[in-house]
């Protein structure tokens, strides 16, 4: 990737971060019905996902990148 594009990507990532922090708590706790759905996770089937990672790691050069937990119903 060209250096300029690389810096653009980095800048975008840095700029996106405050955007993620700002304006939080905009979804009310009682509006979290859909988010409480067990399927609302980045990785709802960890074992199937692990198999995928295994296959693609073996056949390609790239590794890494992984979703993290988030959302939830605001319970407890």
């Amino acid at each position, binding site marked *: 990737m060209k250096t300029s594009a690389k810096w653009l990507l980095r800048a975008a990532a840095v700029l996106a971060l405050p955007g993620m922090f700002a304006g939080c708590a905009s979804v*009310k*706790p*009682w509006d979290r*019905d859909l988010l409480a*759905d067990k399927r609302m996770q980045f990785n709802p089937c960890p074992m199937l996902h692990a198999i995928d990672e295994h296959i693609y790691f073996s056949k390609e050069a790239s590794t890494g990148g992984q979703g993290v937990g988030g959302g939830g119903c*605001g*319970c*407890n």
Partner: protein
Amino acid sequence: MESSPFKARRSFANAAIRAVRLISPLLLLLVLVLPAGSKTTRTAVATPAPNFKLPTQSGTVSLEELRGKVVLVDFWASWCGPCRRSFPWMSDVAEHNAANGFVVVAINLDKSRESADAFLRELSPSFIVAFDPAGKTAEAYNVATMPSSYLVGRDGRVVYSHAGFDARDTETLEKKIKETIAQ
């Protein structure tokens, strides 16, 4: 191209420095925002509990009309796991203290009445259930977690507020209820 241990160690040091540089400002931000995140509910104790008039399964309920009684106002929804666990306990505590002027009003925040009804059919609560699908009452009480409960004294003021529900919380809650009833 590097092959010596020197270069390997230096590239690792560079990477470590880069990682630290990336993470530390964000960690700092974390430290700054964390206190904001640790608040539970924002309806302060000793303030008058906001009034509400909501439909129930058989009519309506109004907090004003319950003045003189000790009321536990609870906010719940069918999709909330801890809410499910709180229902048997609330039925219990409502039955035991009914004679002393204690009432439980559980306000449902489901968007769909069907989901709430299915939940109620399963758990058959022995307390008042009210419906607030638009969430206006939850808004008035500044509900920040599901479930949230507010203990309202006989004078209409909030005595105690509690966020979430866990088996370990029941002792504290029961103590507060007994104290408020005795006043």
